């Protein structure tokens, strides 16, 4: 068994080093789809996180609890709901998003929004009290104070974006159910790994898995490196 794994690993590394076009196109597609999903979730999630993190309003605890509860939503459950909504006969069927990269991006964006809102909101809230008082006592207006708090929490917010991207990049349920794992169209790293493993193409699966982990680790290391710098 160990020999088989070692052989599969060496084959996998050979596939990566040879620049196998299919592997590269799957990896590139995965990065684009999950990157766009992260961008979408930032567009609607960051304003929500800023409101939760920087202001007090009636029902704030309820809103925060909702996003915290949504952190644990199973990707297949969300995938199923989106499938029903986006399928031809579903209420959003007219947009023809099922089995498209954009459909996967939207699904992933919905999946990672709670991560972004909860983590970025917490980063802002934990920065808030002392920095708010300090900025105000140095004469900052409310807007200047809020910008200063966001500035102070920027690494926490960045980490929440990275965590969100990593979650989208590594999820399987939505990519499989909304994307349908169509070759050269919606096949991404995770769906491809599932398929190739089922087909017994272990070396191909390992190659894809190595790329998946390499991307996740590289981004995280890069961010940590920049933070230290």
């Amino acid at each position, binding site marked *: 068994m160990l020999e088989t794994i070692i052989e599969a690993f060496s084959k996998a590394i050979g596939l990566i080093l040879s620049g196998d076009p299919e592997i590269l196109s799957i990896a590139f597609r995965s990065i684009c789809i999950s990157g766009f999903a992260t961008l979408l979730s930032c567009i609607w999630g960051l304003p929500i996180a800023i409101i939760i993190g920087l202001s007090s309003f009636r029902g704030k605890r309820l809103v925060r609890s909702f996003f915290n509860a949504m952190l644990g939503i199973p990707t297949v459950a969300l995938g199923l709901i989106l499938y029903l909504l986006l399928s031809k006969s579903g209420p959003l069927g007219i947009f023809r998003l099922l089995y498209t990269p954009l459909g996967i991006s939207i699904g992933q964006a919905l999946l990672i929004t709670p991560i972004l809102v909860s983590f970025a909101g917490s980063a802002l809230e934990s920065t808030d009290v*002392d*920095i708010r*008082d*300090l*900025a*105000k*006592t*140095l*004469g*900052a207006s409310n807007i*200047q104070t809020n910008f*200063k708090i966001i500035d*102070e929490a920027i690494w926490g917010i960045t980490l929440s974006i990275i965590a969100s991207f990593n979650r989208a990049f590594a999820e399987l349920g939505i990519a499989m159910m909304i994307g349908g794992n169509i070759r050269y169209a919606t096949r991404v790293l995770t769906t491809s790994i599932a398929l190739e493993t089922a087909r017994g193409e272990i070396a191909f699966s390992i190659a894809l898995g190595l790329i998946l982990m390499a991307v996740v680790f590289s981004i995280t290391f890069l961010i940590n490196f920049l933070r230290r710098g």
Partner: protein
Amino acid sequence: MVNSLQIIGIEKIYDGIKVLESISLDIVTGIVISLVGVNGSGKTTLLRIISGLEIPTKGSILSKNSKLRAQDLRQISTMVFQKSVMFNENVYDNIAFGLKIRGFTKEEIDEKVSKALDLVQLNGFENRKAKKLSGGEQQRVALARAFVIEPEILLLDEPTANLDPSNAIVIERVIKDLGERNSCIIILATHNLHQARRLSNEIVHMHSGRILEIADPEQFFKHPSTTITKKFINGDLQF
């Protein structure tokens, strides 16, 4: 320019608990006032109200017969907190923050920051990460950051608490210098009676949210007018 400050009938209630009651004070520019009292006597709350960070439940603060709102107070005062809070930036940017907000030019900011660092004896610290400094150095940066904007009211909440003597001496010297310039009102909350005696022109003894005694240091220590103040000075006050 605020030449004097009238604090009239300030009261503050938190969650149904009265933490300040009937606080009235007349303060003129150029004097250093020390607020002394045991923990929970309301010193910090009073400073936060004067700084505009808290709004009193009752009462008002006037200058030249016009009422100052919290946002007015925030423009003319600044506060140094007991636990120094640093922005996640270098020392220069920490001190420059209030100056940038007020629209000073880069050259002016450079000059003022340099002078401020000189005064707190932290020359050459401009590029050091503020959060990596020792507690005493951070408190000196906090003090420089406060006086560099030339506030009309400087509020200091236990600025030397938990500091080693060498840092405390530097901070006390700066407070004394600022006090001697007669350019602003300085209100210092402290547990340290010796420090209050050394630095202030007037000592205010607070107890359970009320002012018990206001006197110059000599009068305060030699002839305290209330039993509680006597006990407080002698260290006999149970709390």
